[in-house]
Each structure stands twice: as C-alpha cells, then as structure tokens.
C-alpha cells in the first residue's frame, strides 16, 4: 500500500555473505533497491564493505558510507552468519562472547547505525533474522539458541520503541537449510520472499516473529 512503500530505494543487509543473505540481497535488487552489503571480504551488494559488525563504530561508519553512496536506507536486514555449538558448559568464554556479539551485538549495532535516520524520515522497515533453534530447543545447541533467541526479545522490545515513529521491526526465525527429507528444509528464496512481503505488504506487522522453518518447529 502507498503508506508502506519505501520512498527511497536503498537497503542495507548485514552478514551479506551467507547463503540466505545473498538471496535477500538478490531479491531486494530485483525489487529495485540499491543494496549495501556489510560482512566479510566476500560480502555482496551494490556496495559491499568488509566490516567487523561486532564493532559499533565500524558499523555506524559503514552505514553512513552506504547512505552517502546509495541514498537514505529504508530497509535494513540483519543476517548474522555464524554457527557454533558445544554441550552446555563446554564452550570457553571467548567463543561464547564471539557468538553472542555476532548475533545480538551485530543485530543491535546495525539497528543503532541505521534506525535513527529512519526515525527522522518517519518510515523504515527492519527485519532481523534469528533461528528456528531459538524456538525449538535443541540438545547441544544451548549457546546458539541463547545467542539467536536474544534477538527475538530484542526485536519485540525495540519494535515497540520505534513503531509509532513509522519504523516497523520484525523477525524471521530461519529454519534448517538442510534436512532429510530435502522437502523439510527451508529455501533461501522463501526467506527472501518473506523479507519482500514484510517490506511491501507488511505495514501492520510490528514486533512479530515469523517462523519460516518448513515444519522443523511447529
């Protein structure tokens, strides 16, 4: 609808090297966005930048550069790309901190870097990506579930802080990308379609978690 249409066509995707993030970048580009991609050396996008997303200052500087070169950012997608697992009690503190900073820290940094300008503009769409494991509970995945699960609660609370300022924040809990049978796996294009749906048609979605898990968790 007209109120939900971005008035500018620049988007920012963080973690833009993973298979899901690449599908999202491609879909946003197909929908007419210029896309800034932040991530490692292999990040993709119309402007791809290697950035340490756990570093607030670097993330803010990169978002500023994307805004300068591509235009005001009306869509932000955070797609942390790091999996790490160990039985609970067996992950050393540095590994855990890296996992938490990549997921919660990276998502929060990107929001802090991009959303203030969205609030000033009075509109914007943010989609955070979490994991089906945050909803399901999987033995051996307590650390990963905690790191990705924190994004669910962050998304809901942050969404309420900016909803009345025209910025809609929602989350997609991404299902397993590989599964047996293969039909039980979620396809990156389905996540990209959901992002496009939230951007184009999701004006009444605020603080929601959409669980795209192809049945892995129901």
């Amino acid at each position, binding site marked *: 609808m007209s109120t939900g249409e971005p008035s500018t066509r620049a988007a920012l995707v963080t973690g833009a090297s993973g298979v899901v993030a690449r599908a999202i970048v491609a879909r946003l580009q197909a929908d007419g966005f210029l896309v800034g991609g932040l991530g490692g050396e292999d990040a993709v996008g119309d402007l791809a930048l290697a950035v340490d997303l756990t570093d607030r200052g670097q993330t803010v500087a990169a978002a500023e550069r994307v805004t300068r070169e591509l235009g005001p950012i009306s869509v932000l997608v955070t797609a942390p790309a790091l999996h790490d697992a160990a039985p609970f009690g067996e992950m050393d503190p540095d590994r855990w901190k890296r996992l938490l900073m990549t997921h919660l820290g990276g998502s929060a940094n990107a929001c802090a870097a991009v959303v203030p300008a969205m609030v000033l503009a009075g509109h914007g769409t943010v989609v955070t990506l979490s994991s089906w494991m945050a909803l399901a509970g999987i033995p051996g995945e307590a650390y990963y579930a905690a790191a990705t699960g924190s994004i669910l609660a962050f998304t809901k609370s942050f969404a*309420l802080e900016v909803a009345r300022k025209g910025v809609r924040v929602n989350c997609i809990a991404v299902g397993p990308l590989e599964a047996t049978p293969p039909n039980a796996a979620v396809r990156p294009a389905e996540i990209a379609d959901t992002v496009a749906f939230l951007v184009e048609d999701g*004006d009444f979605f605020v603080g929601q978690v*959409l669980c795209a*898990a*192809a049945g892995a968790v129901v």
Partner: protein
Amino acid sequence: MGKLDGMVCLVTGAAQGMGRGMVLRMAHEGARVAVNDVSDDDRLKGVVGEMGGFPAPANIADPVAVRRMVSDVEASLGPIEVLVCNAARMTMMPFLEEPPEQWWEQIDVNLTGHMDVITAVLPHMRRLGRGRIVIISSLWGPTGWENASGYTATKSGLISLGRALGRELAPEGIYVTVVAPGITDTPQLQVDADDAGVTLEEIHATYAKNIPAGRIGIPEDIARTVVFLSTESARAYVGQTIQPNGGEVRSSM
C-alpha cells in the same frame, strides 16, 4: 502478472469486512475466486459483481450445504487450490449468562463448520498433490477475552487445528497456515461501538491507542497477508500463525 494468476480460491464469510477485502485482493492478483457467505443476498451479489467471482452461498454450519457448495465451485471453476477459512460468528456475553445454544452456534460455524469445509476440499487438493489452506483466527485467539469465551475458544482452537493439519498435510504438498488479525476496520467495529455506547470514531481511537503501530488495521492489511500465504513461499510456514496486529500482541502461540 498477478501473484495468484489463474488459481482457484474459495473464501468463506466473504460478503463483507475482511473476507470481502481478501476476495477483492485475490481477484486483483489474478485468482478465480468463489465467494461464500451464509445467504445469496445483495452484499454477496455486490462482491461477486465487483470482481467477477463465483457466488457460493451456504451456511457452513450445515455439512450437507457445505458439500454441495464445494462441489458446485469445483464443477464451475475446477479443483480448489486455496481455501481461506474466514467465516465467523461472534456474540459477546458473560459465559454464565450466555444461552448454551448461542454459545455453541459459534463453535458450530467457526470451528466445526470449517472442519467440514476443509474435509470437503481436501480430496481434490490431495489428487492435485498441492494446496493452501489459510485459516483466519483472531488477536483474541492467543489472548482470550472477557465476554467472548465461545468466540475465543474457536479462535484458539483454529490455531491448534492449523498447527495439527499443517504437520499432517505438509508431506502431501498441502500447506496450512493461520492468520490472527488484530483490530481491523470492519462492520464489526460499529457493533462494538454500539455495545460501548460510543461513536465509531471514538471506538477507532480507543482501539488505536492500544496498538503500537498507532492505527487499527484495514482489510487490505489482512488480505495481503492471505495472498502471501497463498503463494509458493507459504511452504516455509507449516502450521504457523502469522499475526498482522500492529504489534498489539507479540507472543507466539
């Protein structure tokens, strides 16, 4: 090109409000839509006339009428590929004061009625090896609401039905999802306003105050969600409940 080009869709309870919005949106996206409501009155004829759909009147609480309606639709349009279970009855009354037959009427339409409609469309979906069933619950499904015990029982029942059928039918390529809309601008709001003894504008403002998005929904919000869940991408949302509610409720159920 529309998102639902040529797809045969049946929407129950579609003569007004959200259902009407869904029908118009789905037709706009290229679907061939059968429009169900309880009687073949001017409202139903109006919707059908507006978007060139197929009238499918039937009281879904009557299993015989349901079977006849579904076979009429399939004889005219072909196998139903998307079913939207939208029809609903709602009465608001304290549980202990509500006549049991009135309480049960809501169960008969909202829950049992839709189970009959689903039962009637499934044989053809199974033969096709694909299908989409979108069940319309309510904001009040996950939360419950005072003086709406019958209605909310059906709406949370539909969430569980969607979850169970989602699991059961996904292996056959039939994807079942649930939409739990928030407060939406439909003729029901005039009923709410009359009950509360206030104007329609006042009830809009009262509801909007509790919605983080700062506004109530419009039928188009819900219709666009239904269209999304009618597409190929719904495959990822097995048994899930999706909540376009402006942020009023954020729990998953």
